[in-house]
């Protein structure tokens, strides 16, 4: 039975928000009545509103900040927020210039954000949506819209935040965010499953010494199970898949992210990053930036993913703008 520090499973998302505001209430506040977080100061710009299930911290809620999202709607653990939460959250930061939604491409999120968008349109608030579908393990390229959003959220939100902060119109910000989305590809691997708060069983369990190749950030099963190889070999498997998928090659410019899924240590992530760098250098790929950390987690799941973002000059410009939230700053 997994042990967790909590008061009641149902109260987790809300008490987490309270605890966050206890520390960072100077810049953020709660959207009244719902499970949403917003910047205190509404900014005269297109509002970037993100969201998704809780349990992936720091994603999504803690990516509210300067040069990042204006607000985030938080669902229960691994469940999209409901349409009312999304609508209230969006309205709280709408400055009359429209709302850009960025979230992971899941049935639940799509359904709830779409209803929220319809409700907002009825209220006269224009919205546009970018769904992140970076997980190459979750469907073949021909069915790209069936792919899940995983750690690639990080890059799309970073760039969408910069684009809206730069004052782009809703359509232009959408175009830039969608371009980032189209340039980001990820694949992950799980070593051990995590449990939803209050559940005694982990979402998945693996046989001794085995890993799940291509799993999702809710513990969804991946492409195949296999024995755990060494770090370099594992990284090679992930990189080979990404190279094959993206066609990234000599002369291309990329940002990378080695993302921990929860309990995997920075030590392991950096050992992977060492190999990732060797592989990119060896392929002649130009590295604009490497990020390493646990940004999009899956409770205390053990495992990691690698993301590549292919950059052009425009995306690089937005990527390089500063941004800041308590758990993400550049």
């Amino acid at each position, binding site marked *: 039975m997994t042990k967790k520090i909590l008061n009641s499973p149902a109260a987790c998302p809300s008490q987490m928000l309270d605890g966050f505001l206890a520390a960072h209430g100077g810049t953020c506040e709660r959207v009244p009545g719902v499970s949403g977080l917003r910047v205190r100061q509404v900014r005269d710009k297109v509002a970037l509103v993100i969201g998704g299930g809780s349990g992936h911290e720091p994603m999504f809620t803690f990516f509210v900040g300067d040069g990042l999202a204006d607000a985030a709607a938080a669902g229960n653990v691994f*469940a999209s927020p*409901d349409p009312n939460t999304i609508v209230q959250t969006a309205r709280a930061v709408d400055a009359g210039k429209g709302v850009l939604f960025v979230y992971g491409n899941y049935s*639940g999120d799509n359904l709830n954000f779409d209803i929220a968008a319809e409700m907002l349109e009825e209220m006269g608030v224009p919205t546009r949506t970018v769904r992140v579908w970076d*997980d190459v393990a979750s*469907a073949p390229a021909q069915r790209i819209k069936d792919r899940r959003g995983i750690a690639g959220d990080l890059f799309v939100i970073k760039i969408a935040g910069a684009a809206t902060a730069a004052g782009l119109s809703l359509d232009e910000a959408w175009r830039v965010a969608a371009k980032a989305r189209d340039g980001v590809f990820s694949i992950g691997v799980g070593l051990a499953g995590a449990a*939803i708060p209050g*559940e005694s069983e982990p979402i998945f369990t693996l046989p001794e010494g085995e890993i799940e190749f291509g799993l999702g950030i*809710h513990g969804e099963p991946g492409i195949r199970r296999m024995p755990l190889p060494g770090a370099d070999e594992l990284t090679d498997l992930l990189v080979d898949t990404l190279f094959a998928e993206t066609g990234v090659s000599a002369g291309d410019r990329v940002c990378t992210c080695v993302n921990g899924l929860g309990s995997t240590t920075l030590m392991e992530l950096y050992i992977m990053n060492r190999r990732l760098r060797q592989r990119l250098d060896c392929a002649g790929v130009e590295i604009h930036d490497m990020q390493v950390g646990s940004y999009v987690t899956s409770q205390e799941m053990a495992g990691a993913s690698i993301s590549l973002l292919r950059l052009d000059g425009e995306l690089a410009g937005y990527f390089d703008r500063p941004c800041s939230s308590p758990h993400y700053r550049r």
Partner: protein
Amino acid sequence: MERLTAADARELLLYVADRVIESKPYLTEMDRAIGDGDHGIAMALGMGKARETLQTLEGGSDVYRLFCEAGMAMMMSMGGASGVIFGTLFSGGAKGRSPSPALDCAAFTELMAGGLSAVQRRGGAHVGDKTMVDALQPAVEAMEAFPGNDFCGLLGAAEKAARAGAESTRNLVARFGRAKSLGERALGHMDAGAASTHIIFRAMRDFCVRRGGQEDGK
């Protein structure tokens, strides 16, 4: 039972809510196998909210309003795919209808059929996609094919069809929801939402049978 009054409908929905809430561990277990393990949590949460709402609606005189409010309570509290889908199942066929103090079997069938088409409009799933539609559509079809005006018989047929439909998802590869990337590995596992749908129809049938029994006993 030949008529479902507003008072009946309220009790029916409360009964359904209790049965779904009881099934939380079972539904979570189903979702764990090929999804993210939260379907029971979500359904229990939503049905609890529907319960609360129904309790404030005591003395209502419109069957459609009860279904509509129950569905909206689910949709606006649960989140996840199931919040929208199951919220729509209850509210989708009831929304925008002129108030009615009671339904006969034909009207009730129409209500459920309206829920099915709203679910499909919203979610885009068809039979064979390994979703709750695999249980819901056969159930609605069985109701549409049912002759006469007996709720026990009507919901007995629906329950049977829903059960077979839910069972059929074991042999399917998912095209929606979190299991869709699983491909062949989802084979053998029942879809959690289809299991919920079967539980809902079973609870409706059981409610009518018990109610019918009471009527007979009178």
